[in-house]
């Protein structure tokens, strides 16, 4: 919003002869950006709220085409969406892995890549490169990490034996499970269990 008072008019004598006028403008950048956002979001019939400078929430779950159009329209004003396509995809991959690790259906390891490619709708080569670029780790390592984290949770519930946990998490043998746990944490499953138990007891003793 440019207030009248903010417009400094400077008319040079020379310019008067040519009937030209030079305007010196002062911008309220915040208001300009807000207006641009409002116009663009409204043009796509989006139900939105502007949360602050550089943050918009869209309330009616828009389809991907609308989002694409929005990105394009905003781009014309030099506005780009920071949350990149890449990080959205990486989050989707992470979610798919977590879902896979926590589902009770058994997946053979060979099918993991096909499962993820299918779930994400991109080739496995593409998503695995992208994943490594963004997260500093590989999909394979992330799956191991998630499996080990789930194993830790199962160990701590004390409901299943190590053998049962290995079977539930789809390891071919208890030895394979213990080895993977050990190489990921440096600890055996039973040492892990012992440490967490001792921690809890130490905590209880402090309170008592």
């Amino acid at each position: 919003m440019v207030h009248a008072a903010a417009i400094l008019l400077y008319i040079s004598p020379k310019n008067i002869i040519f009937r030209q006028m030079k305007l010196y403008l002062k911008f309220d950048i915040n208001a300009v950006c807000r207006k641009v956002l409002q116009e663009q979001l409204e043009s796509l019939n989006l139900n939105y709220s502007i949360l602050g400078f550089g943050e918009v929430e869209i309330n009616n779950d828009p389809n991907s085409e609308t989002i694409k159009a929005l990105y394009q329209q905003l781009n014309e004003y030099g506005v780009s969406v920071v949350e990149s396509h890449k990080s959205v995809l990486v989050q989707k991959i992470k979610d798919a892995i977590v879902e896979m690790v926590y589902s009770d259906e058994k997946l053979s390891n060979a099918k993991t890549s096909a499962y993820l490619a299918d779930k994400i709708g991109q080739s496995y080569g593409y998503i695995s490169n992208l994943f490594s670029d963004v997260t500093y780790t590989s999909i394979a390592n992330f799956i191991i990490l998630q499996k080990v984290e789930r194993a830790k949770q199962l160990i701590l519930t004390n409901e299943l034996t190590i053998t049962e946990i290995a079977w539930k998490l789809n390891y071919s043998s208890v030895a394979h499970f213990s080895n993977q746990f050990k190489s990921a944490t440096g600890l055996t499953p039973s040492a892990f269990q012992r440490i967490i138990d001792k921690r809890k007891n130490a905590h209880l003793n402090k309170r008592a």
Partner: protein
Amino acid sequence: MQNEIIRVMLADDDEDDRLFFTEAFQEIKIKTTVTTLNNGIELMNYLNKEDAVLPHVLFLDLNMPGKTGLDCLREIKSIDRLKNIAIAIYSTSASDEDIEDTFVEGANVYIKKPHEFSTLKNVLSDVITLNWQYHTSGLNRDNFLLSI
């Protein structure tokens, strides 16, 4: 979150160890800022300031004069403002029992100081990468234990 810089801190009374540590981080892929302190007393004086910028990961040498790494660990875990900092114990040698004890006291990582610089770099990279996964993937920090 991709551009976030991980704040790393080390308290170690050995000057060479501090130097190798800082150099190793310069060669690691994840972006970090490294601050080093010369002993446990200096560390706790720093952390106890209300407006101190806290590290994401704190590496503690066990054998330091005045206040040992274990003293610092216990103190940190008893202060609400500090207790969520990931703690990596950084020591020359230890028995399995010592390692377990520091975990019970609340350490997340136990590192046996490697002799080779290249190994040190790999170990520190592994620690910081795993910490990053806990940081960005909503994993339960209570279960973050790594002996390396």
